[in-house]
C-alpha cells in the first residue's frame, strides 16, 4: 500500500471510530437488553472496537507520522 493511501486509511478509520461512538441510528430507541438500553451496549462494544483500532495504530502508524525519538 502506498504511503498516502495508508494515511487516508487511518484517517478514515479514526473518523469512523469517532462517528460511531454515539449510535445515531438508534436515536429514540428505548429497547432494553439485560436491564440496560441497547444503545448503551452498542457504545460499550464500540469502545472496545476503538481500543483495537488504537492498538493497531500504535503498531503500524504511530511512528510513521510523527517519528520516534531516536530516528
Amino acid at each position, binding site marked *: 500500500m502506498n504511503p498516502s493511501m495508508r494515511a487516508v486509511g487511518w484517517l478514515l478509520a479514526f473518523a469512523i471510530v469517532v462517528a460511531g461512538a454515539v449510535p445515531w441510528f438508534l436515536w429514540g430507541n428505548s429497547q432494553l437488553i439485560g*436491564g*440496560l438500553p441497547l444503545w448503551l451496549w452498542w457504545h460499550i462494544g464500540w469502545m*472496545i472496537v476503538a481500543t483495537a483500532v488504537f492498538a493497531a495504530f500504535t503498531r503500524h502508524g504511530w*511512528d510513521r507520522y510523527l517519528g520516534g525519538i531516536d530516528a
Partner: protein
Amino acid sequence: MPNPALLSGGGLSTAATSVELLVVVGYLLVALLVGLLAYRLTGTDAEDYYLASRSLGTLVLLFTTFATLLSAFTFFAGPNLAYAQGPEWILVMGTMDGILFAILWYLIGYKQWLIGQQHGYVTLPEMLGDRFGSTRLRGLVAGVSLFWLFPYVMLQQMGAGEALVGLTDGAVPYWGGAALITVFMILYVGLAGMRGVAWTDTIQGLFMLGVIWIAVAWVLSAIGGPAVAAAGLEANNPTFLALGSSFYTPQYIISTAVVIAFGVTMFPQINQRFFVAESAAVLKRSFTLWPVLVLLLFVPAFLLGTWAAGLGVSVPEGANVLPVLLGEYTPAWFAALVIAGAMAAMMSSSDSMLLSGSSYFTRDLYRPFVEPAVTADREAWLARGGVVAFATGTFLASLTRPGTLIQVGSTAFGGFAQLALPVMVALYWPKTTRLGMLAGIGGSQLLYLSHVFVPTVPIDVGGVTIALFARTYGGWDVALAGMALGAALTIGVSWVTTAGIDEAAERFVVSAD
C-alpha cells in the same frame, strides 16, 4: 434496604454521621501520608518537583492522567446530570474522553512529548514562548490558563461541600466540606511534588475503579437487579431510556464532547503530563488502554445516578445524588468510603491542578515579568504561597455557588478549549507566526469571555429574535464558534505576517518531518 440511620432519630443519626466523618477524614489523612512518603523520594530541583524527572511508567502515567479526570465533574456532576436528564451523559463523556481525547493525546500530546524531549520544556507557555520568541505570548497563555483553572478548582470544592451535605444528610454544612478539602489540598501540594501526586493518583484511581463497581453490585443486589431499576425508570421517567431527549440533542452531545475533549488537552495539569512520559512506549500503551479505562469508570458512575432517578431517591437541595443513593442502599461506612475515595481523588486532582498552575505562575509569569533573577529557593516559596492564595480564593468563590457543577465545569472546559486549535496550528504549521498566535488566542478568548460574562441581549434579525451573547446558538455551544475563530485568526494572521528573526520554527520539527 434503606439505611436505618437515615430513618431514625437524632442519636443514631449523630453516631452514623461521626462514623462517616471519621472514615472521610481518616482516608484523607492516609492519602496525605502516601504523598509524604513520595516527597521523601523527591529531588528538590524543578524538573523533579514538577515532572518527576520525566520518568513515569505506563501504569503511573495512565493513572495519573486518568486520575486528573477523576474530579468532582465525574463523581458528582456526572451522576447528578444522569439523575436529572438520563444516562446519555455516558455517551457524551465516553466519546469525549475515550475517543476524541485519545486522538488528541497522539496529535498534541505525543508531538509535545517529542519536542519536550529535545528542548527540555516544562510547561506549554514556555514551549510556545520559546518557539515564537515571545515573552508576551508565554504570559498570555499562562494567564489564560490560570484564569480558567480558577473555576475548575472551585468546582472541586463545591463538589466536596455538596457531597458531605448528601452523605451526612445536612449535618455537615456545605462550607464545612468545601473547607475540609481546601485544607487538605493546601497541605498536600505543599508537601509533595509531581511524584507524590502521581503515586497517590495511581492508588486512588485503582481504589475508585474498585469501589464504584462494588457500589454498583451492592445497589443492584439491594434492589434486585438492573431490570428492576429499568422498570422504575419506565414508570418514573419514561423518556430516560430512549436515546436522545429535548436536553440531549445531537447539537448538545457533539458540542459538549468536542469542547471538553479539546479543553482537557489544554488543562495545565493534563498538558504538563504530555512532557513526563518515560518513553514513547509508555505513551502508546496509555493511548491504547484509554477507551477501556474510561468505560470502566463512567458506565458505573453515571448508571448509579440514572438508577437513583428510577428508584425515586429524592436528593435534598444542594446535595449530590451519589452519596444520597449510597446512603440509602449501602451501609453508612461503605457510603462514606466511596465518598472519601472520591474526595481523595478530587484532592489529588486538585493538587495536580494547583501544582501545574503554580509552575505556570512562577516560570511563565513571575520569572519573566517580575524578577528574572529569582533564586530557586525563593521561587519554591512563591509557588507554595501562590497555591495557598489560589486555593483560598477558589474556596471563597465556591461559597457563592455561581451555578451547578456541570455549568461551572463546562464553562472552564470551554475557556481551555479556545487554546487548543491555535496550539495545534503552531505544532503542525511551520509558517505560524507570533502575531498569528496572539490574534488567535486573544480573539477566541474575547469572543468566549464576552459570552460568559455579558448578559444575553435579544436582537431582532429580519423578524426573528436571536439572543445575542447566549451560551448556545441553535443548540450549538458558542465555545465551538470561539474555537473556529481562534483557528481562522491564527492561520489568517500568520498568512499575512512574516515571522520575526527570533521566531524559531525548527524548534517544533521532529524526526518524521
